[in-house]
Protein backbone atom coordinates (compact mmCIF):
# COMPACT_ATOMS: atom_id res chain seq x y z
CA UNK A 1 0.00 0.00 0.00
CA UNK A 2 1.73 3.08 -1.14
CA UNK A 3 0.72 6.22 0.61
CA UNK A 4 -0.66 8.93 -1.65
CA UNK A 5 -0.50 12.66 -0.96
CA UNK A 6 0.02 12.10 2.74
CA UNK A 7 0.79 15.72 3.54
CA UNK A 8 -2.34 17.04 1.91
CA UNK A 9 -4.61 14.52 3.55
CA UNK A 10 -3.00 15.00 6.94
CA UNK A 11 -3.50 18.75 6.95
CA UNK A 12 -6.94 18.47 5.43
CA UNK A 13 -8.20 15.88 7.88
CA UNK A 14 -6.59 17.31 10.99
CA UNK A 15 -7.82 20.77 10.03
CA UNK A 16 -11.31 19.37 9.59
CA UNK A 17 -11.14 17.62 12.93
CA UNK A 18 -9.88 20.65 14.82
CA UNK A 19 -12.30 23.11 13.25
CA UNK A 20 -15.14 20.73 13.98
CA UNK A 21 -13.82 20.37 17.52
CA UNK A 22 -13.90 24.13 17.99
CA UNK A 23 -17.45 24.20 16.66
CA UNK A 24 -18.46 21.52 19.14
CA UNK A 25 -17.56 23.63 22.13
CA UNK A 26 -18.80 26.95 20.81
CA UNK A 27 -22.19 26.24 19.23
CA UNK A 28 -25.23 27.43 21.08
CA UNK A 29 -27.51 24.75 19.73
CA UNK A 30 -26.58 21.25 20.95
CA UNK A 31 -27.77 19.72 17.69
CA UNK A 32 -25.24 21.79 15.79
CA UNK A 33 -22.61 20.75 18.30
CA UNK A 34 -23.50 17.12 17.73
CA UNK A 35 -23.21 17.53 13.98
CA UNK A 36 -19.83 19.17 14.37
CA UNK A 37 -18.77 16.31 16.60
CA UNK A 38 -19.81 13.82 13.93
CA UNK A 39 -17.67 15.72 11.45
CA UNK A 40 -14.74 15.62 13.88
CA UNK A 41 -15.22 11.89 14.36
CA UNK A 42 -15.26 11.25 10.63
CA UNK A 43 -12.17 13.36 10.12
CA UNK A 44 -10.50 11.33 12.80
CA UNK A 45 -11.55 8.11 11.11
CA UNK A 46 -9.69 9.45 8.08
CA UNK A 47 -6.62 10.03 10.26
CA UNK A 48 -6.84 6.43 11.46
CA UNK A 49 -6.88 5.28 7.87
CA UNK A 50 -3.73 7.29 7.31
CA UNK A 51 -2.15 5.63 10.31
CA UNK A 52 -2.77 2.19 8.79
CA UNK A 53 -5.49 1.37 11.28
CA UNK A 54 -8.47 0.63 9.03
CA UNK A 55 -10.23 -1.55 11.55
CA UNK A 56 -10.20 1.16 14.18
CA UNK A 57 -11.43 3.57 11.53
CA UNK A 58 -14.33 1.23 10.74
CA UNK A 59 -15.14 0.89 14.42
CA UNK A 60 -14.99 4.65 14.76
CA UNK A 61 -17.50 5.11 11.94
CA UNK A 62 -19.90 2.38 13.02
CA UNK A 63 -19.77 2.88 16.76
CA UNK A 64 -19.01 6.52 17.26
CA UNK A 65 -20.53 8.25 14.31
CA UNK A 66 -23.35 5.77 13.71
CA UNK A 67 -24.07 4.63 17.25
CA UNK A 68 -23.09 6.96 20.02
CA UNK A 69 -23.99 10.07 18.10
CA UNK A 70 -27.46 8.72 17.40
CA UNK A 71 -27.77 8.28 21.15
CA UNK A 72 -26.70 11.87 21.66
CA UNK A 73 -29.13 13.17 19.09
CA UNK A 74 -31.97 11.21 20.66
CA UNK A 75 -31.21 12.62 24.06
CA UNK A 76 -30.99 16.15 22.70
CA UNK A 77 -34.42 15.67 21.20
CA UNK A 78 -35.68 14.24 24.45
CA UNK A 79 -34.66 17.17 26.60
CA UNK A 80 -36.14 20.48 25.76
CA UNK A 81 -33.33 22.40 24.17
CA UNK A 82 -35.36 25.53 23.57
CA UNK A 83 -34.98 26.62 27.15
CA UNK A 84 -31.32 25.89 27.54
CA UNK A 85 -30.57 27.70 24.30
CA UNK A 86 -31.81 30.95 25.70
CA UNK A 87 -29.69 30.70 28.80
CA UNK A 88 -26.16 31.77 29.35
CA UNK A 89 -23.95 29.29 27.53
CA UNK A 90 -20.72 29.53 29.41
CA UNK A 91 -20.33 29.34 33.15
CA UNK A 92 -18.37 31.69 35.33
CA UNK A 93 -15.25 29.60 35.45
CA UNK A 94 -14.50 30.19 31.79
CA UNK A 95 -11.39 32.21 32.67
CA UNK A 96 -10.15 29.46 34.92
CA UNK A 97 -11.07 26.89 32.31
CA UNK A 98 -9.26 28.55 29.49
CA UNK A 99 -6.25 29.20 31.71
CA UNK A 100 -6.13 25.56 32.74
CA UNK A 101 -6.55 24.44 29.17
CA UNK A 102 -3.84 26.76 27.94
CA UNK A 103 -1.52 25.56 30.65
CA UNK A 104 -2.26 22.00 29.65
CA UNK A 105 -1.63 22.87 26.03
CA UNK A 106 1.69 24.47 26.85
CA UNK A 107 2.60 21.38 28.81
CA UNK A 108 1.81 19.16 25.87
CA UNK A 109 3.74 21.30 23.45
CA UNK A 110 6.69 21.31 25.81
CA UNK A 111 6.60 17.57 26.13
CA UNK A 112 6.40 17.15 22.39
CA UNK A 113 9.10 19.62 21.50
CA UNK A 114 11.58 19.12 24.29
CA UNK A 115 11.03 15.44 24.54
CA UNK A 116 11.50 14.73 20.89
CA UNK A 117 13.81 11.93 21.71
CA UNK A 118 11.10 10.33 23.83
CA UNK A 119 9.58 8.73 20.79
CA UNK A 120 11.71 6.80 18.38
CA UNK A 121 11.13 7.99 14.84
CA UNK A 122 10.86 4.53 13.46
CA UNK A 123 7.73 3.23 11.86
CA UNK A 124 6.64 -0.26 12.67
CA UNK A 125 5.83 -2.23 9.55
CA UNK A 126 2.15 -2.55 10.07
CA UNK A 127 0.42 -5.07 7.85
CA UNK A 128 -2.37 -2.90 6.53
CA UNK A 129 -3.94 -5.57 4.38
CA UNK A 130 -4.33 -8.02 7.24
CA UNK A 131 -4.95 -5.46 9.94
CA UNK A 132 -8.21 -7.01 11.10
CA UNK A 133 -6.70 -10.45 11.24
CA UNK A 134 -3.74 -9.26 13.30
CA UNK A 135 -6.05 -7.43 15.65
CA UNK A 136 -8.10 -10.60 16.02
CA UNK A 137 -5.06 -12.62 16.99
CA UNK A 138 -4.05 -10.09 19.61
CA UNK A 139 -7.51 -9.29 20.88
CA UNK A 140 -8.41 -12.91 21.50
CA UNK A 141 -4.92 -13.88 22.60
CA UNK A 142 -3.02 -11.28 24.62
CA UNK A 143 -6.04 -9.23 25.55
CA UNK A 144 -8.39 -12.08 26.32
CA UNK A 145 -9.32 -10.96 29.82
CA UNK A 146 -9.72 -7.35 28.84
CA UNK A 147 -12.06 -8.51 26.15
CA UNK A 148 -14.17 -10.55 28.54
CA UNK A 149 -14.26 -7.68 30.99
CA UNK A 150 -15.48 -5.44 28.21
CA UNK A 151 -18.59 -7.60 28.01
CA UNK A 152 -19.11 -7.11 31.75
CA UNK A 153 -18.75 -3.39 31.23
CA UNK A 154 -21.38 -3.50 28.54
CA UNK A 155 -23.67 -5.52 30.78
CA UNK A 156 -23.32 -2.93 33.51
CA UNK A 157 -23.91 -0.18 30.97
CA UNK A 158 -27.15 -1.74 29.77
CA UNK A 159 -28.43 -2.28 33.27
CA UNK A 160 -27.37 1.14 34.47
CA UNK A 161 -28.81 3.01 31.55
CA UNK A 162 -32.10 1.14 31.53
CA UNK A 163 -32.57 1.56 35.27
CA UNK A 164 -31.66 5.20 35.01
CA UNK A 165 -33.96 5.97 32.12
CA UNK A 166 -36.90 3.75 32.78
CA UNK A 167 -38.69 4.94 35.83
CA UNK A 168 -41.51 2.47 35.92
CA UNK A 169 -39.31 -0.54 35.98
Amino acid sequence: MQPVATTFFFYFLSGLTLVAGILVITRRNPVHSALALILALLGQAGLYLMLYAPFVAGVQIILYAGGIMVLFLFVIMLVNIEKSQKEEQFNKQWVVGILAAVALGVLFVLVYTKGKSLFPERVAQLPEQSNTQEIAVMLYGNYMFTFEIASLLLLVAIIGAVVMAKKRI
Partner: protein
Amino acid sequence: MTDPTFHLELQEHEKTFLDSNELIINMGPQHPATHGVLRVILKLDGEKVLGTECVIGYLHRGVEKIAEHRTYTMFNPYVDRMDYVAAVSNGLGYCESVEKLLNVEAPPRAKYIRVILAELNRLASHMLWLGTHALDIGAITPLFYTFRDREEILKIFEKYCGARLTTHAFRIGGCLYETYEGFEREVKKFLEFVTPKIGEYEELLTTNRIWVERTKGVGTISAKDCIALGVTGPVLRASGVKWDIRKAQPYAAYADFDFEVPIGQSGDTYDRYIVRMEEMRQSLRIIAQAIDRIPEGPIMARVPKVIKPPVGEIYHSIEAPKGELGYFIVSDGSTQPYRVRVRPPSFVNLQALDLMVRDQLVADVIAVIGTLDIVLGEVDR
Protein backbone atom coordinates in the same frame (compact mmCIF):
# COMPACT_ATOMS: atom_id res chain seq x y z
CA MET B 1 -42.35 44.16 1.44
CA THR B 2 -43.75 41.80 3.99
CA ASP B 3 -41.67 39.43 5.89
CA PRO B 4 -42.72 35.95 4.83
CA THR B 5 -41.59 34.39 8.04
CA PHE B 6 -43.86 34.41 10.98
CA HIS B 7 -43.63 33.23 14.50
CA LEU B 8 -45.79 30.75 16.20
CA GLU B 9 -47.23 31.79 19.43
CA LEU B 10 -45.86 29.14 21.67
CA GLN B 11 -48.01 28.22 24.54
CA GLU B 12 -46.13 27.78 27.73
CA HIS B 13 -47.03 24.33 28.84
CA GLU B 14 -47.24 23.87 32.53
CA LYS B 15 -44.97 20.98 33.17
CA THR B 16 -42.83 19.01 30.82
CA PHE B 17 -41.85 16.01 32.85
CA LEU B 18 -40.59 13.24 30.69
CA ASP B 19 -43.02 10.68 31.98
CA SER B 20 -46.01 12.82 31.34
CA ASN B 21 -44.73 14.28 28.16
CA GLU B 22 -48.01 14.81 26.51
CA LEU B 23 -47.77 15.77 22.95
CA ILE B 24 -50.71 17.30 21.22
CA ILE B 25 -50.94 16.65 17.57
CA ASN B 26 -53.54 17.32 14.95
CA MET B 27 -54.61 14.56 12.71
CA GLY B 28 -56.71 16.08 10.01
CA PRO B 29 -58.60 17.78 8.52
CA GLN B 30 -56.15 17.49 5.64
CA HIS B 31 -54.82 14.06 6.36
CA PRO B 32 -54.71 11.11 4.03
CA ALA B 33 -56.29 8.68 6.43
CA THR B 34 -59.16 10.42 8.14
CA HIS B 35 -61.59 9.59 5.34
CA GLY B 36 -62.49 13.12 4.58
CA VAL B 37 -62.18 16.20 6.67
CA LEU B 38 -62.33 14.75 10.13
CA ARG B 39 -60.00 16.43 12.54
CA VAL B 40 -58.83 14.35 15.45
CA ILE B 41 -56.78 16.05 18.12
CA LEU B 42 -54.55 13.40 19.56
CA LYS B 43 -52.97 13.59 22.92
CA LEU B 44 -49.95 11.37 22.71
CA ASP B 45 -47.36 9.97 25.01
CA GLY B 46 -44.72 9.00 22.50
CA GLU B 47 -46.64 6.63 20.33
CA LYS B 48 -49.37 5.90 22.84
CA VAL B 49 -52.70 7.65 22.62
CA LEU B 50 -53.82 9.21 25.87
CA GLY B 51 -56.99 10.67 24.50
CA THR B 52 -58.64 11.98 21.42
CA GLU B 53 -61.02 14.69 20.57
CA CYS B 54 -62.93 14.78 17.34
CA VAL B 55 -63.55 18.10 15.69
CA ILE B 56 -66.24 17.82 13.08
CA GLY B 57 -68.12 20.26 10.97
CA TYR B 58 -65.73 20.85 8.13
CA LEU B 59 -68.28 19.42 5.72
CA HIS B 60 -71.37 20.83 7.36
CA ARG B 61 -73.97 21.85 4.83
CA GLY B 62 -77.04 22.18 7.01
CA VAL B 63 -78.99 19.37 5.43
CA GLU B 64 -81.50 19.24 8.26
CA LYS B 65 -82.14 22.96 8.06
CA ILE B 66 -82.46 22.86 4.31
CA ALA B 67 -85.25 20.30 4.73
CA GLU B 68 -87.40 22.87 6.49
CA HIS B 69 -87.44 25.03 3.40
CA ARG B 70 -88.04 22.35 0.80
CA THR B 71 -91.07 20.32 0.00
CA TYR B 72 -90.94 16.63 0.80
CA THR B 73 -90.23 15.77 -2.81
CA MET B 74 -87.62 18.43 -3.24
CA PHE B 75 -85.72 17.30 -0.18
CA ASN B 76 -85.37 13.76 -1.47
CA PRO B 77 -82.16 14.31 -3.48
CA TYR B 78 -80.49 16.07 -0.58
CA VAL B 79 -80.37 12.95 1.52
CA ASP B 80 -78.21 11.30 -1.13
CA ARG B 81 -75.50 13.77 -0.25
CA MET B 82 -75.21 12.62 3.33
CA ASP B 83 -73.67 9.22 3.03
CA TYR B 84 -72.58 9.60 -0.52
CA VAL B 85 -71.21 6.11 -0.79
CA ALA B 86 -74.54 4.61 0.25
CA ALA B 87 -76.94 7.05 -1.35
CA VAL B 88 -79.54 4.40 -2.12
CA SER B 89 -79.96 3.50 1.53
CA ASN B 90 -80.38 7.14 2.47
CA GLY B 91 -83.08 7.56 -0.15
CA LEU B 92 -84.76 4.36 0.93
CA GLY B 93 -84.91 5.49 4.53
CA TYR B 94 -86.26 8.88 3.67
CA CYS B 95 -88.88 7.63 1.24
CA GLU B 96 -90.10 5.01 3.65
CA SER B 97 -90.34 7.53 6.46
CA VAL B 98 -92.43 9.90 4.42
CA GLU B 99 -94.53 6.99 3.18
CA LYS B 100 -95.15 5.99 6.75
CA LEU B 101 -96.12 9.54 7.54
CA LEU B 102 -98.46 9.60 4.57
CA ASN B 103 -99.76 6.13 5.36
CA VAL B 104 -99.11 4.79 1.91
CA GLU B 105 -97.23 1.66 1.08
CA ALA B 106 -95.05 1.04 -1.92
CA PRO B 107 -96.15 -1.77 -4.21
CA PRO B 108 -94.34 -5.11 -3.85
CA ARG B 109 -92.36 -4.80 -7.05
CA ALA B 110 -91.05 -1.44 -5.96
CA LYS B 111 -90.09 -2.94 -2.62
CA TYR B 112 -88.14 -5.66 -4.33
CA ILE B 113 -86.34 -3.19 -6.54
CA ARG B 114 -85.55 -1.20 -3.46
CA VAL B 115 -84.12 -4.21 -1.71
CA ILE B 116 -81.99 -5.17 -4.70
CA LEU B 117 -80.57 -1.70 -5.08
CA ALA B 118 -80.06 -1.21 -1.37
CA GLU B 119 -78.17 -4.46 -1.06
CA LEU B 120 -76.07 -3.66 -4.10
CA ASN B 121 -75.35 -0.39 -2.41
CA ARG B 122 -74.39 -2.17 0.76
CA LEU B 123 -71.94 -4.22 -1.25
CA ALA B 124 -70.54 -1.10 -2.87
CA SER B 125 -70.19 0.63 0.48
CA HIS B 126 -68.49 -2.34 2.07
CA MET B 127 -66.15 -2.67 -0.87
CA LEU B 128 -65.14 0.95 -0.56
CA TRP B 129 -64.68 0.45 3.15
CA LEU B 130 -62.52 -2.60 2.61
CA GLY B 131 -60.33 -0.86 0.08
CA THR B 132 -59.72 2.24 2.13
CA HIS B 133 -59.38 0.38 5.39
CA ALA B 134 -56.77 -1.91 3.91
CA LEU B 135 -55.02 1.09 2.40
CA ASP B 136 -54.88 2.74 5.79
CA ILE B 137 -53.27 -0.32 7.27
CA GLY B 138 -50.80 -0.33 4.44
CA ALA B 139 -52.08 -2.93 2.01
CA ILE B 140 -52.45 -0.94 -1.15
CA THR B 141 -53.60 -3.66 -3.49
CA PRO B 142 -57.11 -4.49 -2.18
CA LEU B 143 -58.15 -0.91 -2.93
CA PHE B 144 -57.80 -1.44 -6.63
CA TYR B 145 -59.53 -4.80 -6.56
CA THR B 146 -62.51 -3.46 -4.68
CA PHE B 147 -62.77 -0.38 -6.86
CA ARG B 148 -62.70 -2.55 -9.94
CA ASP B 149 -65.63 -4.60 -8.63
CA ARG B 150 -67.51 -1.65 -7.20
CA GLU B 151 -67.44 -0.24 -10.69
CA GLU B 152 -69.76 -3.02 -11.84
CA ILE B 153 -72.30 -2.03 -9.22
CA LEU B 154 -72.07 1.58 -10.21
CA LYS B 155 -72.66 0.57 -13.80
CA ILE B 156 -75.91 -1.09 -12.80
CA PHE B 157 -76.93 2.05 -10.91
CA GLU B 158 -76.07 4.20 -13.86
CA LYS B 159 -78.13 2.09 -16.19
CA TYR B 160 -81.02 2.08 -13.78
CA CYS B 161 -81.27 5.73 -12.87
CA GLY B 162 -78.61 7.59 -14.75
CA ALA B 163 -76.46 8.47 -11.75
CA ARG B 164 -73.58 6.54 -10.28
CA LEU B 165 -73.05 7.96 -6.85
CA THR B 166 -75.90 10.17 -5.76
CA THR B 167 -78.53 8.05 -7.36
CA HIS B 168 -81.82 9.50 -6.22
CA ALA B 169 -83.28 6.16 -7.22
CA PHE B 170 -86.52 6.14 -5.25
CA ARG B 171 -89.46 8.40 -4.96
CA ILE B 172 -92.00 8.74 -2.21
CA GLY B 173 -94.43 5.95 -2.86
CA GLY B 174 -92.24 3.64 -4.87
CA CYS B 175 -89.74 3.88 -7.64
CA LEU B 176 -89.77 6.24 -10.54
CA TYR B 177 -88.08 3.96 -13.00
CA GLU B 178 -89.04 0.53 -14.13
CA THR B 179 -86.08 -1.82 -14.31
CA TYR B 180 -84.34 -1.59 -17.61
CA GLU B 181 -84.22 -4.27 -20.24
CA GLY B 182 -81.99 -7.10 -19.02
CA PHE B 183 -81.73 -5.82 -15.46
CA GLU B 184 -82.25 -9.27 -13.99
CA ARG B 185 -79.72 -10.82 -16.32
CA GLU B 186 -77.10 -8.23 -15.55
CA VAL B 187 -77.57 -8.47 -11.80
CA LYS B 188 -77.29 -12.24 -12.00
CA LYS B 189 -74.16 -11.91 -14.07
CA PHE B 190 -72.80 -9.51 -11.52
CA LEU B 191 -73.52 -11.98 -8.73
CA GLU B 192 -71.62 -14.67 -10.52
CA PHE B 193 -68.79 -12.25 -11.13
CA VAL B 194 -68.47 -10.93 -7.63
CA THR B 195 -68.84 -14.08 -5.53
CA PRO B 196 -65.32 -15.37 -6.23
CA LYS B 197 -63.95 -11.84 -5.89
CA ILE B 198 -64.89 -11.66 -2.24
CA GLY B 199 -62.87 -14.81 -1.76
CA GLU B 200 -60.05 -13.04 -3.53
CA TYR B 201 -60.05 -10.16 -1.04
CA GLU B 202 -60.13 -12.59 1.82
CA GLU B 203 -57.23 -14.46 0.36
CA LEU B 204 -55.15 -11.31 0.45
CA LEU B 205 -56.07 -10.34 3.98
CA THR B 206 -57.87 -12.80 6.23
CA THR B 207 -54.94 -15.06 7.00
CA ASN B 208 -52.26 -12.51 6.29
CA ARG B 209 -50.13 -12.51 9.39
CA ILE B 210 -49.47 -8.80 9.42
CA TRP B 211 -53.12 -8.03 8.80
CA VAL B 212 -54.16 -10.24 11.69
CA GLU B 213 -51.55 -8.68 13.96
CA ARG B 214 -52.62 -5.21 12.99
CA THR B 215 -56.34 -5.85 13.56
CA LYS B 216 -56.72 -8.50 16.28
CA GLY B 217 -57.26 -6.92 19.67
CA VAL B 218 -57.20 -3.42 18.23
CA GLY B 219 -59.98 -1.01 18.98
CA THR B 220 -61.91 -3.48 21.06
CA ILE B 221 -65.31 -2.35 22.24
CA SER B 222 -67.65 -4.38 24.38
CA ALA B 223 -71.30 -4.97 23.64
CA LYS B 224 -72.22 -3.00 26.74
CA ASP B 225 -70.28 0.04 25.64
CA CYS B 226 -71.69 -0.26 22.16
CA ILE B 227 -75.24 -0.22 23.46
CA ALA B 228 -74.50 2.58 25.89
CA LEU B 229 -73.07 4.73 23.11
CA GLY B 230 -75.78 3.79 20.63
CA VAL B 231 -73.32 2.27 18.24
CA THR B 232 -75.05 0.24 15.57
CA GLY B 233 -74.34 -1.67 12.44
CA PRO B 234 -71.41 -3.99 11.88
CA VAL B 235 -69.54 -2.42 14.79
CA LEU B 236 -72.31 -3.50 17.16
CA ARG B 237 -72.67 -6.89 15.57
CA ALA B 238 -68.95 -7.55 15.80
CA SER B 239 -69.26 -7.10 19.56
CA GLY B 240 -71.68 -9.99 19.64
CA VAL B 241 -75.08 -8.32 19.61
CA LYS B 242 -77.40 -9.80 17.05
CA TRP B 243 -79.20 -6.62 16.11
CA ASP B 244 -80.09 -5.98 12.54
CA ILE B 245 -83.08 -3.84 11.70
CA ARG B 246 -83.65 -5.86 8.58
CA LYS B 247 -84.46 -8.78 10.89
CA ALA B 248 -85.73 -6.98 13.96
CA GLN B 249 -88.13 -4.57 12.34
CA PRO B 250 -88.31 -5.69 8.73
CA TYR B 251 -88.89 -2.88 6.30
CA ALA B 252 -89.20 -2.88 2.52
CA ALA B 253 -89.40 -6.55 1.53
CA TYR B 254 -86.79 -7.90 3.90
CA ALA B 255 -89.28 -10.11 5.68
CA ASP B 256 -89.48 -12.29 2.60
CA PHE B 257 -85.87 -13.23 2.47
CA ASP B 258 -83.77 -15.78 4.16
CA PHE B 259 -80.43 -14.49 5.39
CA GLU B 260 -78.15 -14.67 8.36
CA VAL B 261 -76.97 -11.86 10.60
CA PRO B 262 -73.28 -12.49 11.12
CA ILE B 263 -71.91 -11.59 14.54
CA GLY B 264 -68.45 -11.51 16.04
CA GLN B 265 -67.28 -12.20 19.55
CA SER B 266 -64.54 -9.92 20.70
CA GLY B 267 -65.54 -6.68 19.03
CA ASP B 268 -62.10 -5.90 17.71
CA THR B 269 -61.11 -4.64 14.31
CA TYR B 270 -60.56 -8.10 12.96
CA ASP B 271 -64.05 -9.19 13.96
CA ARG B 272 -65.53 -6.17 12.30
CA TYR B 273 -63.64 -7.05 9.19
CA ILE B 274 -64.93 -10.61 9.27
CA VAL B 275 -68.49 -9.46 9.98
CA ARG B 276 -68.47 -7.10 7.06
CA MET B 277 -67.02 -9.69 4.73
CA GLU B 278 -69.77 -12.09 5.79
CA GLU B 279 -72.36 -9.36 5.36
CA MET B 280 -71.24 -8.95 1.79
CA ARG B 281 -71.94 -12.63 1.20
CA GLN B 282 -75.35 -12.33 2.87
CA SER B 283 -76.15 -9.36 0.67
CA LEU B 284 -75.38 -11.48 -2.33
CA ARG B 285 -77.78 -14.09 -1.00
CA ILE B 286 -80.53 -11.52 -0.56
CA ILE B 287 -80.00 -10.14 -4.03
CA ALA B 288 -80.10 -13.60 -5.54
CA GLN B 289 -83.38 -14.39 -3.80
CA ALA B 290 -84.90 -11.05 -4.69
CA ILE B 291 -83.98 -11.29 -8.32
CA ASP B 292 -85.55 -14.73 -8.53
CA ARG B 293 -88.78 -13.78 -6.88
CA ILE B 294 -89.28 -10.27 -8.11
CA PRO B 295 -93.02 -9.87 -8.69
CA GLU B 296 -94.70 -8.12 -11.60
CA GLY B 297 -96.92 -5.16 -11.01
CA PRO B 298 -96.91 -1.44 -10.60
CA ILE B 299 -93.90 0.30 -9.15
CA MET B 300 -95.59 3.38 -7.80
CA ALA B 301 -98.32 3.63 -5.20
CA ARG B 302 -101.06 6.18 -5.50
CA VAL B 303 -99.49 9.26 -4.02
CA PRO B 304 -101.05 12.71 -4.24
CA LYS B 305 -99.34 15.18 -6.55
CA VAL B 306 -98.70 17.54 -3.70
CA ILE B 307 -97.39 15.70 -0.70
CA LYS B 308 -99.03 17.09 2.37
CA PRO B 309 -98.71 14.66 5.24
CA PRO B 310 -101.09 14.97 8.13
CA VAL B 311 -99.88 16.67 11.28
CA GLY B 312 -97.75 14.29 13.25
CA GLU B 313 -94.33 12.90 13.66
CA ILE B 314 -92.59 9.75 12.69
CA TYR B 315 -89.35 7.99 13.43
CA HIS B 316 -88.37 5.34 10.98
CA SER B 317 -85.03 3.66 10.73
CA ILE B 318 -83.40 1.28 8.34
CA GLU B 319 -80.23 -0.72 8.35
CA ALA B 320 -77.83 1.30 6.26
CA PRO B 321 -74.45 -0.25 5.45
CA LYS B 322 -72.93 1.63 8.36
CA GLY B 323 -75.63 1.06 10.93
CA GLU B 324 -79.01 2.35 11.92
CA LEU B 325 -80.06 5.25 9.74
CA GLY B 326 -83.10 6.91 11.23
CA TYR B 327 -85.28 9.79 10.12
CA PHE B 328 -87.38 11.71 12.56
CA ILE B 329 -89.81 13.87 10.64
CA VAL B 330 -92.27 16.29 12.17
CA SER B 331 -95.04 17.43 9.93
CA ASP B 332 -97.16 20.50 10.55
CA GLY B 333 -99.52 19.63 7.75
CA SER B 334 -97.90 21.86 5.19
CA THR B 335 -95.96 20.83 2.11
CA GLN B 336 -92.70 21.32 3.93
CA PRO B 337 -91.52 19.30 6.88
CA TYR B 338 -91.49 21.23 10.11
CA ARG B 339 -88.35 19.49 11.25
CA VAL B 340 -86.23 16.70 9.93
CA ARG B 341 -83.73 15.10 12.19
CA VAL B 342 -81.43 12.46 10.81
CA ARG B 343 -79.83 9.85 12.96
CA PRO B 344 -76.75 9.08 10.93
CA PRO B 345 -74.89 5.89 11.86
CA SER B 346 -71.44 7.36 11.20
CA PHE B 347 -72.00 10.25 13.56
CA VAL B 348 -73.09 8.02 16.39
CA ASN B 349 -70.41 5.43 15.73
CA LEU B 350 -67.72 8.08 15.69
CA GLN B 351 -68.42 8.69 19.37
CA ALA B 352 -66.87 5.33 20.12
CA LEU B 353 -63.53 6.42 18.67
CA ASP B 354 -62.14 7.83 21.88
CA LEU B 355 -63.10 4.75 23.84
CA MET B 356 -61.65 2.44 21.24
CA VAL B 357 -58.27 4.05 20.76
CA ARG B 358 -57.41 4.99 24.30
CA ASP B 359 -54.11 3.44 25.40
CA GLN B 360 -53.43 2.15 21.94
CA LEU B 361 -50.87 3.37 19.46
CA VAL B 362 -51.08 6.07 16.82
CA ALA B 363 -51.27 3.54 14.06
CA ASP B 364 -54.33 2.04 15.72
CA VAL B 365 -56.17 5.33 15.47
CA ILE B 366 -55.94 4.96 11.74
CA ALA B 367 -57.10 1.38 11.87
CA VAL B 368 -60.02 2.29 14.11
CA ILE B 369 -61.13 5.25 12.04
CA GLY B 370 -61.04 2.90 9.09
CA THR B 371 -62.96 0.18 10.80
CA LEU B 372 -65.67 2.52 12.05
CA ASP B 373 -66.36 3.19 8.39
CA ILE B 374 -67.36 6.79 8.77
CA VAL B 375 -68.37 9.09 5.97
CA LEU B 376 -67.87 12.70 6.85
CA GLY B 377 -70.75 13.82 4.68
CA GLU B 378 -72.99 11.93 7.00
CA VAL B 379 -71.25 12.93 10.20
CA ASP B 380 -71.49 16.61 9.44
CA ARG B 381 -74.62 16.59 7.31
